[in-house]
């Protein structure tokens, strides 16, 4: 079976500091990978998605970036965090390639920027 891991689970960072969140998927190969953010009281906003190694698509302009150095690894980064970057970050995966492709989410990372 497939599992998706995210770490860290919680993170408190000062404004202007860098960020690196990691997501890995087990039990599947060549998945589509996604980064979402849920801000307080709001829905899920897609930030980035990737259909393969080194292939990143950005949905929302911001000071965040994403990378996919390996098939089942997806990293969310920032050089300098803003207060508005606080939120709950979710990684998701899907098999891709079909009309009924379903996304499965990781446990999330709670980021607080002070």
């Amino acid at each position: 079976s497939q599992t998706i891991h995210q770490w860290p689970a919680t993170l408190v960072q000062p404004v202007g500091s860098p960020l690196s969140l990691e997501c890995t998927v087990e039990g599947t190969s060549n998945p589509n990978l996604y980064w979402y953010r849920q801000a307080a009281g709001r829905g899920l906003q897609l930030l980035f998605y990737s259909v393969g190694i080194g292939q990143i698509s950005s949905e929302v302009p911001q000071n965040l970036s994403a990378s996919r150095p390996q098939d089942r690894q997806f990293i969310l980064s920032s050089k300098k965090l803003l207060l508005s970057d606080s939120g709950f970050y979710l990684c998701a995966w899907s098999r891709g390639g079909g009309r009924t492709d379903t996304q499965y989410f990781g446990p999330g990372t709670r980021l607080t920027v002070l």
Partner: protein
Amino acid sequence: DQQVKQNSPSLSVQEGRISILNCDYTNSMFDYFLWYKKYPAEGPTFLISISSIKDKNEDGRFTVFLNKSAKHLSLHIVPSQPGDSAVYFCAARAYMNYGGSQGNLIFGKGTKLSVKP
């Protein structure tokens, strides 16, 4: 522009009764719809989905109904249990296949369901 709307931010239901969560969409190109359940500080869990070629899909206590002409779908939970208390997200997707990419999920803002014993 909100393409997927969950107009009720919260819903309270008595244990054993039916819970009905509603979702409206505006994009007629959406052809796949999903419901996710989310507990606090956890990632959303996939519950049930429906393709636009169907109008109903059932899985145990969960049934999703799709009314394409009204651009409306609903999730029915029968009977409701206290463990069903969570935030429920509706999501929709328009399948696109160009350049190897595909349409991504658009989520509603969620409805918080409280099932009281």
